[in-house]
Structure formats: C-alpha cells, structure tokens
C-alpha cells in the first residue's frame, strides 16, 4: 500500500482549501440544512411554500429579468469596447483600461447612491433631457427598471469587457487578413471569424455579469426601494425584518442554484462545441 504523500499541488492548494472549507463550505451546509428543517422535522415545505406563492415567482422574475437585461446591455455595450481596447495602442489603450478598471475601486454603494442623485427628477440626467428638448418634462427614472439596469450596467460593465478583451487580443490579426483574401466582406469576417473566436470570452463575461447581477443587493435597494424585491433583497428581509430563517435560506439556495446553473452552462458552452485551438 502506498500512503498519501503531500505533493507540490496539494501543499500549494492547502491554505485556500482550508479557508474555503471553514468560511464557505461549512456555512453553505448550514444554509442548506436550515432550508430543509421544518417544525416537524425535515422536509421541502419551505420550497413548496415559496414556489407556490405568486410573490415568490414575482421576485424570481424580477431578479432574472433585471439580470438578463443588465447582461444584455453589458454585452451590447461591452463587446465594441473590447474591440476598441484590442485595436487601441499606447496611451489610448492605457487610458481605456484605466477608465474601465479604476471605477471598480469605487464601491457599489457609492456608485448606486451617485445614480440616485443623477436619476432623480431634478437630477443631471433629467435636466439634460429637458434642456436638450428630448423630453418636455422630467422622466421618471429612479425607482424604475430602466434606472436599475442603468446603474447595474455601470457597475458590471468591466466584468463583460475584460474577459472578451482578453480573448480578442489573442486572435491572430492575420486570420482576418486570410478571411478577406478568401472573399469575406467585413461583416462576414466578423460573424465567421471574430465572433466565433471570441465566444469563450463572451460566455465568461455573460456568466460573470449574470451571476453578479442576479444576486445584486445594494443597487436594487438604493435605486428601487422596498416595493421592488429581488432574490437578494428578499433574503435580507427574511432574515433582518421577518425573522424567517426558513424562507431566507430557501431563497438563498434558489439563488445558489441559479449561480451553479450559470457556471455549469458557461463551462459547457465554452468547452463543448469547441475544439483545441491550433498550437
């Protein structure tokens, strides 16, 4: 019998493993346990309660829709930014990267609060809309889904741009030259070469932004108020105000399930239909 002997890999991974076991796995198990403990022993009663309640579906829908919209807008805005970042050289590229990464050091609370100032009826955005004649009177933005997505995109955009950029900059520009000499027009080159080759970055960006925006808490709290609930705000309310640990843990597990689903799906999408790239 050969006994287990520590290898470089296991030793290097040990501190992080211990930390994750104590700080993450154990609480997670407690959370799962709480969600299936009922007054009469174990059961899935809490899940049944949540998923048979129209309010439960409404909250789930709110979260998924806000996350979906945020992800979609981030992708539409972020992809061209990644392309610009790839083409930019020297000082321009550094400037773009700094503009993208520096705001990450400002907390979500500060940003979300700033958006409440910008979006309110006498805020800068509305003043601009009225002044330019785009709108006759102030538009209601704060406490609307539009405002929520606007704020969320601002906070999560970098997490879409950076993975796409990191993949896009690896693409050999001669591939596009080759496509051109083979008779491919610019749009075709994008659709048949650039887009397929950047898909791993797109998938990673979508997974990042979706999983972060589906669980966002500060932004909906500040930009939407109490009348709009997402999974995260409901978890907080369950624990903090309703003192309903059962509901709170159930929703938390549902949120976790969505996150796991996104990770698994993106892992499969990034690997499944693709083959090993040329050496």
């Amino acid at each position, binding site marked *: 019998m050969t006994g287990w002997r520590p290898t470089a890999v296991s030793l290097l991974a040990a501190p992080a493993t211990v930390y994750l076991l104590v700080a993450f796995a154990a609480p997670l198990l407690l959370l799962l346990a709480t969600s299936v403990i009922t007054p009469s022993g174990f059961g899935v009663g809490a899940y049944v309660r949540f998923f048979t309640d129209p309010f439960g579906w409404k909250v789930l829908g709110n979260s998924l829709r806000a996350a979906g919209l945020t992800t979609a807008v981030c992708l539409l805005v972020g992809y061209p930014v990644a392309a610009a970042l790839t083409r930019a050289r020297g000082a321009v590229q550094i400037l773009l990267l700094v503009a993208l990464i520096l705001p990450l050091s400002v907390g979500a609370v500060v940003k979300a609060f700033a958006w409440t100032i910008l979006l309110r009826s006498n805020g800068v955005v509305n003043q601009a809309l009225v002044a330019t004649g785009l709108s006759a009177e102030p538009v209601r933005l704060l406490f609307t889904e539009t405002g929520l997505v606007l704020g969320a995109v601002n906070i999560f955009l970098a997490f879409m741009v950076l993975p796409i950029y990191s993949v896009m900059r690896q693409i050999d520009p*001669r591939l596009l*030259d080759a*496509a*051109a000499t*083979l008779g491919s027009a*610019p749009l075709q080159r994008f659709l048949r070469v650039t887009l397929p080759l950047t898909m791993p970055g797109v998938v990673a960006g979508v997974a990042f932004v979706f999983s972060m925006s589906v669980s966002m808490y500060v932004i909906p709290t500040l930009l939407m108020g109490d009348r709009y609930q997402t999974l995260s705000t409901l978890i907080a309310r369950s624990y903090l105000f309703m003192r309903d640990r059962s509901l709170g843990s159930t929703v938390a597990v549902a949120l976790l399930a969505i996150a796991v689903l996104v990770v698994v799906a993106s892992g499969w999408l990034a690997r499944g239909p693709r083959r*090993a*790239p*040329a050496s």
Partner: protein
Amino acid sequence: MGQGHGGLSEAPRASAYLEVAGVGKRFRDTVVIDGLDLAVEAGELISLLGPSGCGKTTLLRIIAGLLPADRGAIRLDGRDLTRLPAHRRNVGVVFQNYALFPHLTVADNVAFGLRARRRPAAEVADAVVRALALVQLDEYAGRPIGALSGGQQQRVAVARALAVKPGLLLLDEPLSALDRKLREVMQIELRHLLRHLGITAVFVTHDQDEALVMSDRIAVMNAGRIEQLGGPAEIYHRPATPFVLDFVGLSSRFHGEVVGTDGDEVVAMTAVGALRGRGRAPMGAKVMVAVRPERISVEPGGQAAANRAELTVRDAVFMGSKLVLHFDAPAGDRAVAELAAGAAEKLRPGDVVTARWSAADTLVFPR
C-alpha cells in the same frame, strides 16, 4: 549585362498578366517600397527575394489589398485592382504562419472562401474534396486544425487558397516554418502543383535556394526596389549588382584598380595579382572582381586560364557532395572555391594551391 546601372527592373508591358506600376509606400518617414514596377506573365512563378526589411512582404500585402499603396497601380488581367478591397480581388494568399482558422475543421477551412462566395453546398463539398486531393489530405477533412503537423497545416493553407480558383496566388514565406528536410520536399511538391494548375504565383522568400527551386524568374529586392529581375541562372551567373552577387550564392571577390581595358573585358590589379573579367570600366577606376566558387579550379597543372592566383588554404569544409575551400584573403576580399568531393580531399590548411578561372566567369563591378 546591366552592371553598374544599379538596377534592372523591367518596365511593365501592356500585355502582362499582373502589373505593378510605380507603387510606393512609406511608413512614417521610412520608404518601404520605392516606386516599384513589376510585370508578371500569366502562369509564371515569380519570387520576390531579399533580406528582411527589403519591402517584399509589404509589396505582397499591397498586391493582396491588405495594405493600401501610397501611389502607383496594381492591375491583374487588365482589371485595375488598386482601389478594390482585398475581399473583391480574387487574389489568394498563403500566409507565413498559415493563418488557418483554429475554430474550424480542415474541410471548413478549405470551404471558407467558397462559402464566402455563397456557392451552393454541393459545389462547395465537391471543391473541398478536389482541393484536399490536390494536397493529398483527403483523409484529414474532418480533423481539427490543431491536430495537424506543420507540413499538413501548410498544405491545408495551400488547398484553402486554391479552392476558390484565385486569379493570382501570393505566398509569403510559405515554407519557412518547416524543418529543412520537409521544406525541400515541399518546395518540389508545391512547384509541381502550381505548374500543373498553371496558376500565376508570386512568392516572397528570403531563402535563395527556395527562390532558385520555385521560380521561373526571381526579383531580387533591396531597400524597396528590385535590384534585378531574371531567371534563376541569370541571377546566379550574371548578378547585376554587388548586392545580388552577395545575396544569391557564395562568391570570391577581390578589390582592385583597372589597369587595362580590352573591348568587353577589363584587367584589374588586385591583392592576388592581375585579374581579367567581363565588364566595362575606365582606366584607374576602383572595381570589385568576383567569381562564383564552383568556377574556380585548383587542379595542379590544369589547363591554361585567363586568371590564376596563388592562394593559401585556410579551411577545407567537406559538405557531402562537394568540398568548399576557404582561402586566406586580405581584409575586405574573400576567396572561396567549391570542388567536387574527392577531387582535393588531401588539401590541408596552410597548403598553397594555384586557383584558375576564365575571364568569361569573372564579373567586374565598379565601386
């Protein structure tokens, strides 16, 4: 002979298949292509041969439409391509690193150009099979690109470029990434394939052997200009400029001063004595006298020749089929001879031999 004229580029003729007329290109303050003319006949294989930085790849990219020229015109088969974007030129390119699409299979790579042209699926499938058969890769149609060896990838790149039946094929150092043995095999295969298809092709290479093997004519480029355009034998035996002499093949060269003229020949006094060669130069002119190494004979008591020099062997290098002798020479000069192996294998460093060669094999370049 164009000795001393600094260049021998043919003026484009109206009948040429590919015409490059007065093309110029500069990057910032650096002139990369300097008013270059080139005319290529239909079905011809032409090499652009030169050191890195001579502008050969830039010229290729301009012909392909991947880079705009600052001035001049590109015409193919009577059609002015100058303002056409690359995707409308029907000019195929085989790239140095092959630039195969890593996300597609071998067959999909080859089909790429046909699909871009929106050909019916049946026609695409048919053309892919034929193109892969041309390069003997029929078996590999479904493989991902990453699963192929370098030589196989190179052949996929050729098949992909040929599948669309381009009016012109451009090859940018197409074999430089392969090891020497495979490269020599591929040179012959590629040359055979292109001749068989009757396609007009322009190669870019810095490898003189590749240029000599692959092409009907070679354009030797230097500093954005064509120094000489001619058949492989002409380039080798009658280099128009010292640059061409130096870049293509080995040579012995002796610096000297003209001490006599005689019709098409001159006699120059050099460090190894008076040498007679073909060329024109006034009395007293400073010249360089050159001769190819295999034109030199060192047989003791060999037949009389116009030029003879007593040379001391510095190194005798056995190369398999030949023996290369390097001789002592004054600074700036070089003396080297190539003999059939076996002929002089007993020669050792320090031996003094009498080298002989004819005036007809001797080139004289003004300095």
